[in-house]
């Protein structure tokens, strides 16, 4: 462990079973991933545009409108289709949380730690430019990046607000979905959770899954591993039902994100869910002063998109 102590990600080593494998992975250059802005175009057309540009896109097996860039990625961020808001560049593991929120048009969504706004944009697109996304961040200066993204993608349904996430005003009213992607790398995550713990009614009336995610360290996720090969939890999505007496989220639903719940609520501790995401139940752990829930699941995308 001493050997790794200088590594920027050494604080995560207590979470992984194979530190050497984890560090080897995070030291590799990042791959590029993009998702389609379905408000302006469709995945088929974007695929053709990217292919013509020599980016060699490959549809992700676990997302209907996101691509892995397997060719060169020089000029991807200055390509005309990017400028026209046809797609957005986002790391694969960061695409998962908003996808799992299962946002549908007309919903009211709160992104509590929104900046720089990639997941906010993803949720806003999923709403189909209807409904509302309240994008909050504690630091107002960080919201400018979100505004630029929204402008390029043509997102009309985002309202930005600036509040301390641990004291979000109850006047904001109820939300259908709440996403908290707290910057845990700065030790914020525990305080956010404690904030909700001490003021459980701060989002009173919220009727939906309360989604927490650990921030992805520098966007590096174990995205190229085969199932079971690497279990580093660089993205761990934690889910909790808001009210214990409510029906499980899986009831009567058949879409892929719900399949994940079916498997996990059904008692499975690890496997591949319907949309090709691998999951593993992690025992309760203490990390940066915060004890994770025993029902915490680590999620990571697979390259093969194995289906059960």
């Amino acid at each position, binding site marked *: 462990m001493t050997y790794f102590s200088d590594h920027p990600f050494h604080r995560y080593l207590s979470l992984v079973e194979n530190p050497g494998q984890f560090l080897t992975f995070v030291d590799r250059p990042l791959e590029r991933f993009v998702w389609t802005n379905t408000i*302006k175009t469709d995945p088929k057309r974007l695929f053709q545009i990217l292919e013509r540009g020599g980016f060699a896109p490959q549809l992700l097996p676990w997302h209907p409108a996101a691509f892995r860039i397997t060719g060169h990625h020089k000029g991807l961020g200055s390509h005309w289709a990017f*400028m026209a*808001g046809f797609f957005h560049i986002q790391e694969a593991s960061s695409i998962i949380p908003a996808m799992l929120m299962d946002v549908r048009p007309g919903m009211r969504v709160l992104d509590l730690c929104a900046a720089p706004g990639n997941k906010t944009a993803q949720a806003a697109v999923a709403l189909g430019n209807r409904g509302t996304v309240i994008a909050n961040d504690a630091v107002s200066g960080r919201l400018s990046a979100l505004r*630029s993204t929204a402008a390029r993608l043509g997102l009309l349904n985002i309202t930005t607000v*600036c509040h301390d996430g641990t004291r979000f005003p109850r006047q904001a009213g109820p939300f259908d979905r709440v996403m908290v992607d707290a910057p845990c790398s700065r030790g914020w995550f525990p305080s956010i959770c404690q904030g909700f713990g001490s003021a459980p009614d701060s989002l009173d009336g919220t009727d939906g899954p309360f989604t927490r995610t650990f921030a992805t360290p520098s966007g590096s996720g174990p995205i190229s591993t085969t199932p079971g090969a690497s279990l580093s939890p660089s993205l761990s999505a934690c889910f909790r039902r808001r009210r214990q007496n409510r029906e499980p989220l899986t009831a009567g639903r058949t879409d892929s994100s719900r399949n994940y719940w079916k498997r996990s609520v059904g008692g499975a501790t690890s496997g591949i869910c319907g949309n090709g995401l691998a999951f593993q139940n992690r025992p309760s752990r203490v990390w940066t002063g915060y004890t994770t829930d025993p029902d915490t699941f680590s999620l990571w995308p697979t390259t093969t998109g194995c289906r059960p």
Partner: protein
Amino acid sequence: MRRRHTGLPLLHTRSKVPRLTTEGATLFGGRATRNRVRLTPEQLDRYIARASLVLTEDQSVSLDASGVVLVDFDRAIVGNGFYRAADRSLESYFPKKWL
């Protein structure tokens, strides 16, 4: 709540004549049938770099007169610009902050 911003600006109202912002143009301009100019890949590069360019006669034939036109590439509106009929030039209005 301390609201910072809601939605997007779609129209410049302080210019001499109201005109669509680039956000508005890319969202709603696709339905336009007039005052829409289709660029070549080379022209598009210049447009995105905010450089002015000269349109061909074919490109300018469907434009009514000098004024703001929508810029089309590959059947998608990428923004707008100011067309001057006298010299068939197009001034790019592509936003600096998007570069």
